[in-house]
């Protein structure tokens, strides 16, 4: 165990704990955008900036990626830190002014919508949660970043129809800004996959990854419950009876 000091409070945590985790344990709030507790720390958005004491004065680091060492002294709410957080939110607000998470964060940090920059209206803020979730949780790596610099955006390879997406919706669940859409089309309705085919319901469309799926119906209750492709892919990976996925979860229980 190691002991570190956050905002004057001593905290004892196991070695390897990040500053963010230690702060959370102590009830100290550090805002985050690209962080998710189930995913590898990324350090991209820089919103979790904190000030740590080092050899030559203090230094700004991202709390989510910085592993605490014994005796570390951390400040999470200095003027320097707060200015950085405001700046990050100002920059991102001009990217995605309509994102609720950014509006709320702006309010919490006392940021007003910056006037200097032309709004971009691109919801994807390149936080990479979908990319990591798809790789680390779902295990299919159907999406990744495309382009560099300002044009960086989460996308299926070459902006084409994703070959690997199984329509599970994990990316939708982790996306903080609502940049990823998943549409479930009911029986009797029709909808078109971006740059792709028109599907008849029941179907699911992942617009960002340009892919659509026919939905499997439960043989017991008749309700559509999962994309057929997803069930095929899962069956390949796990050894379950052939008819395991014929019924939905509710009916199985």
């Amino acid at each position, binding site marked *: 165990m190691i002991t570190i000091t956050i905002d004057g409070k001593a905290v004892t945590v196991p070695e390897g704990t990040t500053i963010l985790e230690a702060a959370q344990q102590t009830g100290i709030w550090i805002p985050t955008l690209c962080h998710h507790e189930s995913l590898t720390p990324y350090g991209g958005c*820089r919103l979790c*900036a904190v000030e740590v004491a080092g050899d030559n004065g203090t230094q*700004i680091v991202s709390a989510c990626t910085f592993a605490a060492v014994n005796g570390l002294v951390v400040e999470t709410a200095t003027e320097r830190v707060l200015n950085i957080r405001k700046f*990050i939110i100002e*920059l*991102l607000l*001009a990217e995605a002014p309509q994102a609720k998470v950014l509006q709320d964060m702006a309010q919490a940090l006392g940021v007003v919508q910056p006037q200097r920059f032309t709004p971009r209206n691109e919801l994807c803020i390149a936080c990479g949660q979908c990319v990591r979730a798809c790789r680390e949780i779902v295990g299919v790596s159907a999406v990744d970043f495309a382009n560099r*610099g*300002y044009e960086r955006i989460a996308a299926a390879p070459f902006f084409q129809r994703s070959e690997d997406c199984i329509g599970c919706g994990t990316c939708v669940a982790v996306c903080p800004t609502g940049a990823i859409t998943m549409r479930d089309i009911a029986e009797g309705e029709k909808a078109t996959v971006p740059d792709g085919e028109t599907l008849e319901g029941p179907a699911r469309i992942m617009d960002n990854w340009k892919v659509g799926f026919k939905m499997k119906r439960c043989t017991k209750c008749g309700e559509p419950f999962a994309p057929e492709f997803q069930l095929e892919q899962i069956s390949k990976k796990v050894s379950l009876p052939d008819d395991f996925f014929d019924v939905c979860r509710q009916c199985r229980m």
Partner: protein
Amino acid sequence: MKGSTSKRLAKLQKEGLTTLFPESTKIMVGSASCGIAAGADAVLQAITAEVKKKKMDAVVQKVGCIGLCYLEPLVDIIIPGRPRLTYGNVTPEKAKELVAAAKKGKVLEGALGKITAEPFLIEGTARDYNGTAGGVDDVPLYAELPFYRKQNRIALRNCGFIDPENITEYIAKGGYQSLASVLEKSSPGRIASDVERAGLRGRGGAGFPTGRKWKICLSARSDEKYLICNADEGDPGAYMDRSILEGDPHAVIEGMLIGGYAIGATRGFIYVRDEYPLAIERLEKALEQVREHGLVGEKILGSSFNFDITISRGAGAFVCGEETALIKSIEGDCGEPRQRPPFPAESGLWGKPTIINNVETLATVPVIAAKGAKWFSSIGTDGSKGSKVFSLVGNVNNIGLVEVPMGTTLRDIIFDIGGGIPNNRAFKAVQTGGPSGGCIPESLIDLPVDYDALTKSGSIMGSGGLIVMDEKTCMVDVAKYFLEFLESESCGKCTPCRVGVKRMREILTDICEGKAELEDLTRLEDMAGLINDSALCALGRTAPNPVLSTLKYFKDEYLAHILLKKCPAGVCKDLITFSVDKKTCIGCGACKKACPADAVTGEKKKAHKINTKKCIKCGACREVCPVSAVLT
């Protein structure tokens, strides 16, 4: 040195001397990328053909770049009994004449310089070319040419002198002797200490003391450690490392072997950009040769040191020069930086302790090992020892590669070595340190160039690019140019760099287009500070530097753009209109001919006029006007 090892090296040394100093005539063609781009291949072919045709007994060789890039293709010729002579701007025809004259034992006029004795830096000797036959008294000595007088070539010691594809010539000049004696007489800790005491600081940008870095890695416990040579060199206009790799690859390999020994590594990697095909080719050949002679692999030179070297090609992204991104790239991942700590010296390539060193740093190491810490630290300034290679480019007469002792002033580099500013224009600023460096104004021209002085001036040493700018350069435009570069080279991982740098660049664009307000200057400064503080890697953190340093020294120019809507240097198109000064115009018609938009009218010998409606502000008229009558 163990008997067998020293015998082996001595044998190769002897072999190398036979081609370094042949009995016959020797002709060398500068065949680094700079020479080849200027036509060195055709010159070499012409020489080879002519030598064959004349049935001459001569050694014809490719050598690396001697630094005078603006005079390429360069041909050096040693006729027995005469000093070595260098000819510049050689055409295939001229090359034939050179051969014909050499056949008769004569020298052709027009040599740029002569060398009577070739320096052997490692041994601390010089070997003369037996140039007793006269006839070249009017040719200046190399060492006295303004371009060379103030140089001190340590990293570039062999460039232009040896055949980079022949290991025996490298060995003849003292190569691999340092390695042999380090392996035999020194311990890893001792050589690391020697390099630390020498005061060698990393030449790749950050200037971290090399020996200290090695010690950190040496003390890390691990079954495997790695040494990586950083040859990503992505700064626009910089080609120091390329030139070393093309002109003296073995110097880098020997430096890697010594560094690998010092940190306890078993494997080395050379991370080199794909855009350097010639450097890669020469490195591959060099690695084949060291393998053949037991200089890499197991039990090197009979010691217990095992070390192998692999080339790893990068796709040439600027950010891949950053240590953590470079490591990711070698691992086969996308080259994106991660936060440090952990520093690579503790946890680097595949999680093992890893040292990354720059090409020039490594090429310097064998010299330190041979000549000692004291010798090296006697060169340079208090905080910066040794010499540094600069690529001198931009608005300067002598464009080329120069290596000067630390502490040489900018004035010496630009005006003495560089020969000053072309076209009778005034010097305005010099940009140092690569894209995220800064611009230093005329008032600081006597600044001694070292790590600390440059940092204090608001710029950085960086890897050694020096871009000279004359009075016709707009400093706001310059800042915008570098930000555009960094914007396009940002990987996009972190917000301040991905979005912040772009937004700063937008403000600069507005300033150049006359659309900015005074407040934007404070905004730029604030953003610069915040990006510097919060970006993930050094690319982002230093990206605002070009703006900060130009704001510091050239604020007037920013103000003129914003308040007067004028670009004093006449560069920003939206803020200038072209006109002809009636009084000065001599009516020669050159502008009329040059104008691609038919915007110039006027009769011969009468003052011309520019139709501003048709004018596309390309500046062609201003370029060609012999009397500077085109105003902006």
